[in-house]
């Protein structure tokens, strides 16, 4: 390949530029959310995230004056600062009809003999002939330029706010509790089955492989209710056997149930991937081992498992990403109480109660994808290697 490219430098540049464009196209969506998650809600809705690095001039939402009142020369004076950030006022007003009528520094008479001056730096002086104690102070509309500002507040809100009804840390733990066993258990079961399907001769092998391939396509949604019924039935039968009727000692919904469910749903892909990989392992090794008197069990644990590591790892990553990101299965097989609600469920709740707030949405979406991204970036080598062997024939 290189020799062609070497002959035509123009083509190389075309390739570089096209790849650059493609990569840009693919990371821009995520980048936009990442940048937004560090901006305040006001900034997000008042300018595009791609302008986050520049000073923005815009009309701000009305700010109600607030400050300590002091008596001076028979007048009551309220002084204060409009902004919490370093903004510069270029125009201001007190009526929604004329929000930019006054210059900074100008003193303007209001109703009831009050006067108000707003300076460019956002400080203001309100004077009133009578005390403003207990009355509503006027609002100020400002047109101001705000320097770029980034904040961690969104993450603070998402991580520590009690609004979702639980701490996100607890949800994090719950998700880990679901995802880790639900990744490891199916691998073991699938590995044994894949070995049998790849290297053992028996009647009905072809049929079984065909059936597993067929099960790959079964849509998950239709399995949910029959299975939950099954879990509940088993739980109540067991309660009956142990003489625990009427109590909730064993429940159909719980971690055991979701582990089993994820195991069942993940198995076809696991068996399919692992079998394809194992079939490709050199036949001589296995036959030599058999000649040396090794049993199938020994061959499996001593030879096949270590050799299949890339495929095992890649399936593990897949299954982990899938269980970590899953919402539907968790909604059905787990409860929604604090010690069972998973991260995705928590985020969706947060979206529901804070739906219009981009700053909350973006930060919570990033919290939810942080772990999968970390896993993905640290393990992608295995993922690629295993996938390749599994599906490329």
């Amino acid at each position, binding site marked *: 390949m290189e020799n062609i*490219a070497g002959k035509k430098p123009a083509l190389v540049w075309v390739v570089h530029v096209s790849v650059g464009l493609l990569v840009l196209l693919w990371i821009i969506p995520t980048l936009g959310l990442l940048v937004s998650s560090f901006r305040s809600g006001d900034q997000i809705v008042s300018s595009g995230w791609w302008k986050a690095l520049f000073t923005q001039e815009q009309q701000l939402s009305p700010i109600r004056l607030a400050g300590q009142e002091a008596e001076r020369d028979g007048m009551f004076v309220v002084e204060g600062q409009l902004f919490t950030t370093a903004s510069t006022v270029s125009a201001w007003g007190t009526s929604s009809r004329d929000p930019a009528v006054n210059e900074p520094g100008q003193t303007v008479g209001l109703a009831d003999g009050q006067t108000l001056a707003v300076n460019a730096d956002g400080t203001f002086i309100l004077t009133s002939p009578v005390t403003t104690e207990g009355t509503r102070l006027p609002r100020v509309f400002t047109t101001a330029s705000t320097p770029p500002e980034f904040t961690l507040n969104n993450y603070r809100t998402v991580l520590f706010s009690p609004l979702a009804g639980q701490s996100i840390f607890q949800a994090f733990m719950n998700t880990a509790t679901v995802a880790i066993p639900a990744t490891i258990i199916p691998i073991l079961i699938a590995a044994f089955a894949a070995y049998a399907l790849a290297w053992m001769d028996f009647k009905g092998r072809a049929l079984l492989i065909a059936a597993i391939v067929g099960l790959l396509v079964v849509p998950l*949604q239709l399995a949910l209710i029959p299975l939950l019924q099954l879990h509940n039935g088993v739980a109540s039968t067991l309660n009956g056997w142990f003489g625990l009727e009427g109590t909730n000692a064993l429940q159909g919904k719980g971690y055991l149930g979701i582990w089993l469910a994820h195991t069942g749903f993940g198995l076809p892909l696991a068996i399919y991937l692992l079998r394809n990989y194992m079939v490709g392992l050199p036949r001589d090794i296995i036959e030599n081992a058999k000649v040396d008197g090794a049993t199938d069990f020994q061959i499996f644990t001593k030879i096949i498992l270590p050799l299949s590591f890339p495929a095992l790892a890649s399936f593990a990553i897949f299954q982990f990403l899938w269980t970590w990101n899953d919402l539907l299965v968790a909604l059905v097989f787990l409860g929604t109480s604090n010690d069972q609600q998973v991260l995705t469920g928590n985020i969706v709740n947060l979206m529901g109660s804070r739906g219009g707030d981009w700053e909350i949405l973006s930060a919570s979406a990033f919290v939810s994808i942080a772990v999968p991204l970390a896993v993905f970036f640290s393990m992608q080598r295995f993922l690629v290697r295993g996938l390749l062997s599994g*599906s490329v024939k």
Partner: protein
Amino acid sequence: MTQALLAFLTIVVGVAGCLGYFWASNLLLDKVLFPARGPNAGQNINRANLLRPWLFLFPAVVALGLYLAYPVFATLWLSLNRNQSGELVFVGLDNYRTMFGEAKFRESLRNNMVWLIVVPAASTAFGLLAAQLTDRIRWGNLAKSMIFMPMAISFVGASVIWKLIYDTREAGQPQIGLLNALWMQADGGFFSILILKVLPVVLLVGIAAGILWFLWAQIRDFADGGIWGKVLRGLGVLVGAWLVFVALSWAWGAATAMLPYGKPQFWLQIPFWNNFFLMAVLIWLQTGFAMVILSAALRGVPEETVEAAILDGANPFQIFFKIKVPQIMGTIVVVWTTITITVLKVFDIVRAMTGGQQETQVLANYMYEKLFVAVDWGVGSASAMIILLLVSPILVWNVYSARKEMR
């Protein structure tokens, strides 16, 4: 912390239990049931070997049967019944009749057809492009992982990401959605005509030309293959011809459309086209998958064939389309079908972004709504069976090729 302990304990017990089961059952088979000793040693070894595969398979078969096969039959049964105040009443195909009478169902069927054509095609095409290009440059691996990254993002997260892109503010206010911000730059001048008119027309005509080339190849080879091959080719030609027609009429539409420059657009509400804005999300998520697998397949293409072609004076495009693509056709089909399955199962994107409204309903979301919102299990299960029916060609093909491989 008890919970972490519980999880850890489960892992230990689960792993030990699995290993213990396999080890103990093998031991039982070899030492107790059919010991390879005594007068019947030979016979016993044979018997043990007959049974052993099933020991290895037992847990997997039970789990698969219980968690995937049983629900299929349960759903089939439910789809033939109606729930009348808690009692199941057999109604035959009544649910299916009701379903086909619903406009929303026909809409989701139509949309699903579009999804099934566009998403796998676009993901595979982008994946192939990315695979071919990134293989040739030094920072290719970095580029690959960037394109592959969306695979790790949940559908919930992806929906938030894309909602921000499609966001719309009133004209006059700053647009915070990237798409609208770009759109507002278009003013009907030279560049907007180049990008919004010329580019789509060229792309669509290109697609049409590609399909035509494929059609010609099919017609040329029509005589090959058995009766089924002929039928398949015939069907392929018909579908292809229709697609060419669609692509050309869209190209005509794109060339003649009056675009509402300067007016912010509500992308997720433009009838019919909003489906494509939803599909973009899934294409974005799936391209990485296609790219990784196709890139490996491309690397597997024997160097000699490529070098021979170079010596014959083939240009890079000829090498790619005539030498490489035919050799990785099998992998392309695998990628295509895998993405097709994902398309049929996926409902989170539609649910989170439009809720299936404004004519964006798809089957998976229709089924979810019937099952859990309208609590109509009969029709819900019937639509599940339709999804199953739609994937069954892939199922049959998978089974067929798996069997071929066995021989």
